[in-house]
């Protein structure tokens, strides 16, 4: 089957039941999205399908009917997305394992709402677990990114 990831089309030959996450990671070598739980409970695997955040660990690849964007497609070290730049300014990451998912959730929120309230941030980000407890800085980084997007 054909799969569009970060602007590139791939031919993949796997079971249609295989979660998108494992197609990305083990078939295509795209390892930014992380495996955390396999049951959509932690958000580490979050990617966008046509801009909508989804938990790739629980999305069978056969159901994917749009363009997939992973953290690698959002921005790169040389060309950061506004959310990534804010994450660096606020020095958010600790172990960093959940941060791909956190950033993808934040980017999806800010693509819909460039002036989120604390409650909006709570609602959009509480599906993403962080065992290091980077939440105070995540909240600050989302607000910083929102401000930079509004000013752009």
């Amino acid at each position, binding site marked *: 089957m054909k799969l569009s990831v970060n602007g590139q089309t791939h031919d993949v030959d796997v079971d249609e039941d295989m979660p998108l996450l494992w197609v990305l990671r083990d078939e295509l070598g795209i390892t930014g999205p992380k495996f955390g739980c396999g*049951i959509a409970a932690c958000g580490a695997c979050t990617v966008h399908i046509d801009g909508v955040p989804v938990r790739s660990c629980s999305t069978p690849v056969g159901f994917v009917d749009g363009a997939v964007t992973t953290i690698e497609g959002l921005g790169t*070290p040389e060309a*950061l997305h506004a959310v990534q730049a804010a994450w660096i300014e606020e020095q958010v990451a600790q172990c960093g394992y959940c941060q791909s998912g956190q950033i993808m959730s934040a980017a999806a929120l800010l693509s819909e709402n460039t002036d989120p309230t604390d409650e909006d941030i709570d609602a959009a980000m509480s599906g993403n677990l962080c065992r290091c*407890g980077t939440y*105070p800085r995540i*909240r600050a980084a989302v607000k910083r990114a929102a401000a930079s997007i509004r000013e752009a």
Partner: protein
Amino acid sequence: MGIGTIARRTFLFGSAAVAGGFAVGYWAYKEPFENPLLDTLEPGQVAITPYVKIDAAGITLVSPRSEMGQGVMTTLAALVAEELDVDLADVAVEHAPASKAYYNQLLMDEAAGQPVTDNSASAEFARDAMRVISRFLGNQGTGGSTSTPDSFVKLRKAGAGARAVLIKAAAREMGVPARSLKTDNGSVVAPDGTRLAYTALAAAAAKESVPSDPDLKPQSEWKILGKSQRRVDMVAKATGTAEFGIDVQLPDMLYATVKMNCHIGSGIRSFDLNGVDERPEVKRVIALDHGLAIVATNTWYAFRAAQDIMVDWEGPSYPKSQDEITASIYQAFDTEYDSRLRDDGDIETALSDGEIVSGTYQVPYLAHATMEPMNATGWYKDGELDIWTGTQAPTMARTMVAEETGLPESKIRIHTTYLGGGFGRRSETDFVKQAARIAMAMEGTPIKMTWSREEDMCHDQYRPLSAAKFSGCVKDGRIDAFDLQVSSSPTAIDGFSRRGMNLNIPDPTIVQNAWDNPYEIANYRVTGYRAPIALPLGFWRSVGASKCGFFQEAAIDEVIHAAGLDPVEARLQLLSHEPSRKVVEAVAAMSNWGSPLPDGHGRGVAFYLSFGVPSAQVFEVANTPYGIRLVNIWAAVDVGTALDPRNIEAQVQSGIIYGLSAAIKGEITVVDGRVSQSNFHDYDGLRLRETPPIHVAVLENGEKIRGIGEPGTPPAAPALTNAIFAATGQRIRALPLANHIAFA
């Protein structure tokens, strides 16, 4: 001599034998290690000290400790960079190879049995003896909040030594005296302003000898240390390009998972592959000691096959029910005590009259639940085994893999990646040994083995279920007596036995930091009781202090309230240790302690000194119609010397949130011999919407530099329960709190 032999000997015979071992082994103690980087160099690259690699393209600093989120790569690189005179932004930083040269000298300090605030010559002598043992053990371990104090002098000396040889090389090249040269941000500078970049001096510098004891800059001249740094791993972690163990990619790699007996440690009676071995995507099923490994073309195919295999498991070797295990903890109170490290005054007499407050506290088993499930990648070819994994213990992993496979350690290379959370879990080597077994069985093919979350949750080494009984009494407005008895299975005994060492000492984790907390109470006793081991036990962020901090600070709060005292004032009355007083005073000031609060709000305070760090917290909570809401948290810690204030702030917030996840939600229970939790739906952590603002003050009044990965955790649970009491009048004595009260 094996590590087990040394450890058994020293612990069996106590401190006299330790001192004797010092004398016997002194020649070996002084023998320098070879530079382990010499085997790892690229063409044209040189290694000056085990911490600095230079070639024409740039400078690489080597971190002897594992980056698991605590920012250690940045802080340790900053120590080298400060003296080497380079900007952190201009260097690469990488994990060290596994080598005893990178041993951590402080990992055994607590086994010296000295109160942490005692800096007397005899206390230091006892600690020094443990450091000699540490050198022989050669454990390159990350844990115990030791990385910064262990490295503080060592890595600055490494930077200063490297700078000295670069100056020597430049002096030779320029034909001028070395003393006429200065350095500036990666270059040697001559009096006439001529600059020679370190990168151009690499080959010449490699021929110079490194001074063994170079002078260090005075603190007043620090340019990097003491100032908040941008973490060296931040851009990679914000762009999905940081390589964790689970991200390792090798040519023609296959993927594996394991299916292990949920009766932890027991074996297999029989199994039925149920046809999975006939699936084209399944390449091999391998028998392990306590389960099976499945090798496939994709991790998910391996997971699916693991689910479909049917196994008849052997039963558990420990009690099957939670009730039996819990009962065994309470039964231990009636056995001979394991330790009584504090026994001031006459507690029995003091508690024989007056108004006595007493009660019983309990905490459950806890899993580490790192975000990245356990994994490791192995590749066995040409008689050599390479393993890539996120480990807190590279040399221990190598030793254990050698034991598991029969290969000599010289044929095993451990490559440390970033760790997706550690918290003590990745100081274990169970998953590394499995990956080694699988790689040996699949000779020639690299195999990445990844556990499912369910395997990870059910095969942890857990923070033990524990209970405490306390009694206290107040006379003349002051706490006159406090008795704390803790019963727990022994984490250190169990943890060290898995590492080949049988400790014949009272288990220090049962009463960790409760006995040497700097409270002065006329009649004060702390007793530890050792309960049997059921589930395997592991080092969980702040280890025994995680539970003892709760027991002590919640219990003493009860005594304080019974006497009608102010919780901050009463604690200050008990504390003579000045840095400890200062953190309590700091959180009281920050939180405006004593000022009026809205209806339904309450404040709680807690103090605990763990890993040498006095740590105080004030919580404000609101009792709402929907349950308890956390409103604000204030925290103060004293690390002696703060190398990177913003990172320390992050670690304190992190430690608090880790402690709160456990206090509010965390509970591992046993049903029918199995851990009954399996994933984040039934073993969840705190979420963003539940996390209040956390304000952190970092103080520097302490006598020694200290590490901060753990000391934020112990006060979190008692500060919260004390605040809930203030807001509701309800004193909750068993964790997790969500079993007893709703949270909004």
